[in-house]
């Protein structure tokens, strides 16, 4: 067995420990080196992964880990995401959080967990990677030091997360009990052998697995934790939750359903269709009623999960491309939106939608970036949101879910309404306090990078789509 194929994971673990270790020796005023070290480490692993794993198709530990283009794509995506999250945390951590060493260290561990999730080819490995991710996130969510909100969010997340993990484990045990294996390819073979109709016990297992993973990505009705946790967590962590942990869970879902459960497609499609319809509608409707910007973005991302789930429900190579593309496009856009919230919070310590009043006068650039993010989330052309949504919706329509696509388009219209309420605050309502917002050049640079990314994906998606097609080919040939 070639352990070198695991080099990116080993290196990343080393980076995490390095960050924790260096932290011990850095004086308080030199902690700024930690994010720099993290970024260098993440970029190093990124380069290493691409150079070393490109085009490989093999497995490790007898099929527990799969080294293919799918896992490579997500590795690269998570590492880039990690860099962006670290960069957007810098000012926030300096201002609002203590112990930056643990913050960045745990963040890197969670990226490691996501990389393992996308690569796992077996249910228990996937479960353990998921738990590593969850435990890192439990800590990060309760990292805030002010007031009860962060601890409340953390406790809620732990308790419900444990409940969801139990469901998932029970589901796995059902599947193992009936089919005698936890490896994806063997499940696939066993299901083919079994034929239809599906054994009820396997079905129960499948539903429990859907519920457990549905919790992680906040599918209605397993979504209730999300707004509370999003609101209470430090904002960079919220952004990370909304983008990173969701993308990792969808990577696992895509691989699981295409490589393991595909033979039972007719059985589970209807579940996902109903959940998708419910998720996008509830998410967008409830978002309209929110007063807090983080809660609103939480519900809006629940709505986005509905679109993504629709793609999984129409699972085909085309739909898988659409889901991955939308994960990337929506992820970048959401990071941009949250970065604006972070910048705003750093300067004002406020995060209600009403507080954004007059932002256009206080900081035209931040207001413009936020507007771009919101318009992209609503799916306006020339931003990432349009291109990725269009791809996803056509793929779903191609899979025969035309009515669900109609519902999704209607939901996009509803979402435009509440996004514009925020824009109305920024541009139309005068501010109580008209002092210009204090935004560091560094934050402006991060905003500019994200904004450029959102526009590039929107205008010139070709190379990204090619990479995604290569990734999909690994799971759905």
């Amino acid at each position, binding site marked *: 067995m070639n352990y070198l194929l695991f080099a990116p994971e080993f290196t990343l673990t080393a980076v995490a420990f390095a960050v924790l270790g260096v932290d011990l020796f850095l004086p308080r005023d030199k902690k700024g080196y930690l994010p720099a070290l993290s970024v260098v480490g993440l970029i190093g692993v990124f380069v290493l992964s691409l150079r070393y794993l490109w085009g490989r198709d093999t497995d490790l530990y007898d099929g527990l880990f799969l080294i293919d283009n799918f896992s490579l794509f997500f590795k690269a995506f998570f590492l880039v995401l990690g860099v962006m999250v670290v960069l957007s945390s810098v000012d926030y951590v300096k201002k609002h959080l203590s112990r930056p060493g643990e913050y960045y260290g745990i963040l890197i561990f969670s990226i490691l967990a996501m990389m393992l999730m996308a690569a796992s080819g077996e249910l228990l490995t996937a479960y353990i990677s998921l738990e590593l991710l969850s435990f890192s996130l439990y800590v990060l969510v309760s990292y805030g030091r002010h007031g009860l909100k962060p601890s409340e969010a953390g406790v809620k997340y732990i308790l419900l997360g444990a409940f969801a993990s139990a469901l998932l484990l029970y589901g796995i045990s059902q599947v193992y009990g009936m089919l005698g294996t936890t490896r994806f390819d063997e499940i696939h073979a066993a299901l083919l052998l079994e034929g239809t109709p599906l054994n009820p016990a396997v079905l129960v297992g499948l539903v429990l697995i859907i519920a457990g993973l549905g919790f992680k990505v906040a599918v209605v009705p397993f979504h*209730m934790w999300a707004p509370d946790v999003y609101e209470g967590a430090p904002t960079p962590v919220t952004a990370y939750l909304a983008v990173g942990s969701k993308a990792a869970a969808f990577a696992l879902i895509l691989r699981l359903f295409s490589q393991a459960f595909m033979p039972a497609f007719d059985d589970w499609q209807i579940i996902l269709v109903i959940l998708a319809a419910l998720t996008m509608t509830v998410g967008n409707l409830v978002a309209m009623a929110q007063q807090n910007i983080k809660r609103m973005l939480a519900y809006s991302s629940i709505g986005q999960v509905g679109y993504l789930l629709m793609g999984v429900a129409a699972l085909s190579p085309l739909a898988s491309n659409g889901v991955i593309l939308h994960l990337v496009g929506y992820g970048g856009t959401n990071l941009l939106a949250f970065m604006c919230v972070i910048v705003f919070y750093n300067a004002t310590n406020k995060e209600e939608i009403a507080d954004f009043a007059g932002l256009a006068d206080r900081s035209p650039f931040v207001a413009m970036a936020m507007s771009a993010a919101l318009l992209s989330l609503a799916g306006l052309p020339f931003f990432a949101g*349009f291109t990725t949504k269009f791809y996803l919706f056509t793929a779903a329509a191609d899979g025969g879910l035309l009515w669900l696509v109609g519902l999704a388009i209607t939901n996009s219209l509803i979402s435009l309404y509440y996004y514009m309420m925020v824009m109305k605050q920024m*541009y*139309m309502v005068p501010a109580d306090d008209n002092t210009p917002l204090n935004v560091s050049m560094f934050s402006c640079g991060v905003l500019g990078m994200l904004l450029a990314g959102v526009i590039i994906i929107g205008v010139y998606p070709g190379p990204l789509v090619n990479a995604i097609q290569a990734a999909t080919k690994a799971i759905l040939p």
Partner: protein
Amino acid sequence: MIFEGAAWAIFLLPLASFVVISLFVRPFLNQYEKYSGYLTILAIGAAFVLSIWALGSVLGNEGEIGWEAHSWLAIGNLEISLGILMDPLTAILLIVVTSVSLAVQVYSQGYMRGDPSYSRYFAFMSLFTASMLGLVLARNIVQLYAFWELVGLSSYLLIGFWYNRPAAAAAAKKAFLVTRLGDVGFLLGILYLFFNKEAFLSQGLNPFEIADINLIAHGGEVAGVQIIALGSGVATWVAVGIFAGAVGKSAQFPLHVWLPDAMEGPTPVSALIHAATMVVAGVFLVARFFPLFESSTTAMNIVAVIGGFTAIFAATMGLVMNDIKRVLAYSTVSQLGYMMLALGVGAYEAAIFHLFNHAFFKALLFLGAGSVNHASGTFNMQYMGGLKRYMPRTYVTFLIAAVSISGIFPLAGFWSKDEILVGAWNHGGTIGQLVFWMALVAAFMTAFYIFRALFLTFHGEFRGGVDAENGSQSGGHGVHLAESPWVMVAPMMVLAVPAVVSGFLANPLNTAWGLGIVPTHWFSKLLGNVEFISVHPEPMNLVMAFGSTVVALAGIGLAYLMYYAHKVSPEKVAAAIRPAYNAAFCKYYFDDLYEDWITRRGFYKGVAQSTDWVDRNIIDRIGVGIGFLGRNVGQVIGMLENGQVQAYGAGMSIGILVILVVFSIWN
């Protein structure tokens, strides 16, 4: 003959102007902001010259100039391409957009002088012009849709240009959301095409290419190949979806509500976007997919009836408005209805011809309103009057445009209106008869309201302008009774020329008594070169011409009696038809219905807030009631003071149970 790079430059030049102004001039060189205006004029002027070249090439080529498509994105085995579709329809629209935009940009130099956001204004104007040109040039329906949205976005930015005014910001949002409502249909239409892609792919066609859509809708034998047409059901649904987008953008009933409010934007913006270009995008869209519409009688009838009804419905509201820009806005809605009804009865060339003529005289009317506002400080005609004495040049150009829109021989409006009436009459049947009479009544109303506006604004005694309107608290602008500066008047004079003569391009007269320079049916024959379009140029129908002129003169005469000679008191007329008057004055309560009842009470309070409530409370109660997670956990989280965690856990469990139950029933 024009080459592809030059055609792209038509779109890229204004885009470059937007990028340069917003990335360089505004942040770094704001003290040189007057160069933003010059840069915009230069870019659009060059685009105008290139557009003339394009039209000349299309004329020389007698039809479409074929260029390669460039691949943008592949969805599975399907390419979405980018590229230019250069045919006579495109060329005509290019001329309209660039020429009106050029005139408006020159005018804006005067109108926007001293505005604190001068550069931002020209940046947005450049962006709008670029996106409108991109829309017109698109060869692919997805490309067209993208620019369609971008046009909507730049319109949003320009309506809300003075975003510190609540009315402007609200109007911008309303315009954006209402037009997007129509776009839901448009996007669904596109996806429905994709859904039926096999019908295209099996014949080597692409369901996103505009030319291919029209080809398959046309069916029959084309260039020696037998094309199997789309099923009529599919064609109808796609056409209806596309038309929904057109209804939103062109402010047709029932999505007409946004256009009058959009008048909150700067007046040159109204002239360019909400009179001459963006609002005709809907008409252009239907014309672009005309073979598709023609293949479905249902779709055609829907277009005709919606158009005819809008023409008359909007005109009634134009009769009673006091704000000059709102009169013009309802007039625009009504005229767009005219174009739609012409398309619906198959009078393709008449619709495009009216679009062409209308762009010039309506832009001129709006610029006139802006000029009047420059002097009086208000848009309320009740506080104007007598301005003819102070602004003779504005008066003359406004008069020319008013006569033109009323449809008086020999000005531009006469020719195209006449063609539409003839088209409706010849179409025959119930639909043809219905829309013909609608159009004729609307013609009467048009003449009446436009001359009512003219008399109230320019004749009689001056009634105090903005000072009288605001009482003592008039600030800032103030009354300044004088002709507007040349930079504003000159573009109006230039636009007055096509308002008089553009009608001759149709030249429906016999060769025997022709007009010399313009060949008979020149415009129709030009459009006849559009792929799969057959035009039926009609010789001039003297009875119709005479009849419609009489109707228009009657409208003008009535306006004269009421508002110039004061022989008939407007108040008494209003009192005599009080309920109808009030209904029209209150815009038939559509704003209340949409905003208050449907959006606020029905949707926001009713659906959204109750979903939120259920989300937070019902499941909560159930959870507490069942005490699902047991006491131990309850004690652990007792410090959280509420039962949310149990409730959420219970919600999840119930969710799983429901899925299982539904699922076992399903199988």
